[in-house]
Every structure is written in structure tokens, then in C-alpha cells.
């Protein structure tokens, strides 16, 4: 674990894996005075309460990702994405099997970014861990469900994007006017079901 200075009141905690990111996030999320806590692929950015943060990081067990989840969320998906056949071919299997693999796995929101409410979910079966499209789409429709590398995600709103799209959901992923605007938050457990 490496602590990198980030201005006068923030630190970038650099670790080696998503498991370690989850451990650091869990160790810091209940500290008073923390203004921002932003997990990412190999880092956790923390702003505020740096003395308490440094103290808490001395005792964090990086080998233990938190086992309890604050929330469990189910996302219904219509599996008719434009890249479903490509994903099946790449995995050496059938579209039906892709759907089975994607719905049987249990995911966790590792971090959010790219756009409000865009959660990067880990737990993707190995056969579905595939590269991005060679040429990204200029507009991915809202609700599209895709895979890229070790992640799967649902697009909260139309944006450009290069993920392989296997389906779509009609659930609202982000609504700035709602009391709880984001469906997904870091640490949530997520399952996909056939809509």
C-alpha cells in the first residue's frame, strides 16, 4: 500500500487489487469528517480527516474484502444486445450460455465513474472477460448492459462507449431528481435476472 499526496487535504491510497481497494474503502467509509471517498481500479481517493485516515490505514487487513454488503440489488435484463453473438463466439459458446453465465454470477460494485451512476461490477465469469470493441460506438443507448475486461455494467444514460453489449435494462440507474439518485453504490451486491 502506497499513500500518495493529493493536494493539501486528500490522499490517493494505491493498492494492488480490487480486493484491496474494497478493504480500504470499507476501512475508511465510516470515518467522521471524510468528505469524499472514491474507490477506483487500484486506488482509493480520500478527502478530509487525513489524520484519522492514516491511523485507520495502519490496521487495515488488505487480504480481507468486506463480506457483508450494505445493499443487494437485482437488475432485470432483456438479453438481445447487438454484440451477444460476438461475445458467444469469443467465449466459444452459445448466446443462451452467455445469458446463463451472466445471470448466475453474483457481482459487486467495485467503483463508479465515467458518468453519474455508472457502476463497474466485478465478479464476471472468466469466459465473459473480453476486450472492448475495436471501434467504440458514438452512442450507446440508455440501459444497455455490456462487458469489458473484468467488468460488467449498465449504462445510466446514452453516452459513447466501447463495451460489448449483451442486453438492456429498463430499470432507472440514475435520476438526479430522486431522493436516492444512484441505483448502484460502491460495495453493493448485484444480480442480473432475465426480464
Amino acid at each position, binding site marked *: 500500500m502506497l499513500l500518495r499526496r493529493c*493536494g493539501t487535504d486528500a490522499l490517493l491510497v494505491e493498492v494492488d487489487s480490487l480486493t484491496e481497494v474494497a478493504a480500504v474503502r470499507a476501512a475508511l467509509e465510516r470515518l467522521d469528517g471524510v*468528505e469524499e471517498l472514491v474507490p*477506483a481500479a487500484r486506488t482509493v481517493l480520500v478527502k478530509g480527516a487525513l489524520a484519522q485516515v492514516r491511523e485507520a490505514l495502519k490496521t487495515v487487513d488488505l487480504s480481507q474484502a468486506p463480506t457483508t454488503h450494505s445493499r443487494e440489488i437485482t437488475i432485470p435484463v432483456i438479453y438481445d444486445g447487438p454484440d451477444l453473438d460476438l461475445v458467444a463466439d469469443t467465449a466459444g459458446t452459445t448466446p443462451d450460455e452467455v445469458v446463463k453465465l451472466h445471470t448466475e454470477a453474483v457481482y459487486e460494485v467495485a467503483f463508479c*465513474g*465515467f458518468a*453519474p451512476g455508472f457502476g463497474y461490477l466485478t465478479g464476471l465469469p472468466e469466459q465473459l472477460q473480453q476486450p472492448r470493441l475495436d471501434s467504440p460506438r458514438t452512442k450507446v443507448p440508455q440501459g444497455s448492459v455490456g462487458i469489458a475486461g473484468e467488468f460488467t455494467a449498465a449504462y445510466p444514460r446514452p453516452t459513447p462507449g466501447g463495451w460489448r453489449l449483451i442486453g438492456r435494462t429498463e430499470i432507472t440507474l440514475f435520476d*438526479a431528481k430522486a431522493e436516492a439518485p*444512484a441505483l448502484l453504490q*460502491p460495495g453493493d451486491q448485484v444480480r442480473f435476472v432475465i426480464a
Partner: protein
Amino acid sequence: MSRTVTIIRTGPQALVQDLGRPGNAHLGVPPSGALDRDSLKLANRLVGNAESAAGLELLLGGLALEANSSCTIAVTGPSTELRVDGRLVDSHQPVHLKPQQVLEIGTPQTGLRTYLALSGGVDVPEELGSRSTDLLSGIGPDPLRDNDVLTLGKPGTATGADVVPPHRALHTLVVPILLGPRDDWFEDAETQLRQGSWAVSDRSNRVGARLQGTVLNRRDGEIPSEGMITGAVQVPPDGQPVVFLNDHPTTGGYPVIGVVDGDHLGFLGQARPGTAVRFRPVG
């Protein structure tokens, strides 16, 4: 009955801004809020509002409005000509508008952003605890359009005792920068920053102040996306630094050579394209 004003013309860009919605970066939501926070706070104090009330951030002034009810306004930021029904009035002071009076805001002589506070504040629905327009994410109200009618909140008591002379935007900014978190991507980051010189690019916006000038030599490649804070100086492969302002993306994959302290970001928010920028590495 609610008090309102009608926007006759917006000028180049008129946005509702308060102090933003920090604390939501983990959801992918930028902090947003007024770029020159001190000017918005001052304008609010002048009209008897809480400092955090929503006002208008005007790019190069140019707004005109008609009061439909009586209200007190104050304009802050760089020195700007103001007229009420064609008569000159002072900026940086509370000005009372009677119903049907027309306020016209000129173009500031220096700087970029003028702030207009209205007694009671602009009352639009909050989104994630703020009324600010976030141009990157599309959160908050749309940019104002001609003929929009703005509803005002309940007025407080204007003090009028808090008059501060306008500051002039400078032709050259010397910006203190704290090295890190990714200064190790640069060979002798401190010397490169100290010896370089840049100008604010006309592609700057609320997302970032883009600087043009000395190329900062960095390693090739990208970092797995990591959290970004306001004031982070990101260096893309072309070596031209970008100072993240309030509507910045919450994560990014280019190395951050250093971070500009929040107290100095207001000056960058007021810096016109062409303004000379130098960095002063500290710490």
C-alpha cells in the same frame, strides 16, 4: 405569491450556481458549483442571502432581466457596468429593483465570470443537494434561455455593510501547486513546472482550464482510472496540462502531476483565454 424575474436576454452563457454538490464523487457525480466561490458568496451576503444560496454565473456578463416583483440584487466578480432602467448603478453593492424595472449587466472589463445574487436566491429544485448546473453531467437546471422566468425564494435582510471593491483579473497568474500524486511519471516534475510557461486556452470551460505552452515530458501509457479532485493538474499524452475545475470528471486515467489549492482556483475560473500562467511548486 412567489416573486419572480424574467430573463430578457442571457448573454453568452447564464447558469444557476450555488456552492455545488461535493461528496458525491463515489457515484460519479462532479462537485460543480460557482467557479469563483468568493464572488458568489459576497453577492449573496450583499442581498441578505445565505452564502450558499443559488445565484447566476454569467460568462462575460451580458444578461438583462425585468423584475416582476420588488427584489434586491448584487453583482460581483470583475468590475462590470450595470444599468437599471438605463441609469448607471454600482456593482458590488445591493441594488433595489422595483417591479417592472430592467437590470442590464455589461461585459466585464477584465476576467470571465460575473455573479448575480437575487434576494431569496434562485428557487429551482435541488438535485443531490444543490441547484447548480453541471455542464459535464447534465445534472441541475438547463442553462438559462431568453424569456425564462426565475422564481425567487424567501428574502432575508440585506445588510449593505459588506461592500468590497471588485478585484481585477490579472494578466499573469502565478499558481502554487503541490506535487503529486503522480509526479513520479515526470522526470524532475518540480523543475519542469517551475521553468515552464503557459497561456489559458480558448478550449477552457467549467470542466477544466486547459493550458497551452511548455510540453511537460511524461512517461507513455495510462493509469487505471483513479479518483480526481478539483484542482488536479492532469497531463494527457500531448504534455499540455489541464487544471480540473468544478465540473470535472470524478475519475481519469492521465497522470496528475500536482494539485492547485482550492483558494487559487477562483483566479483560474476568472482567467480569460490568453492569460499567462506559471506554476510555483510548493512542498
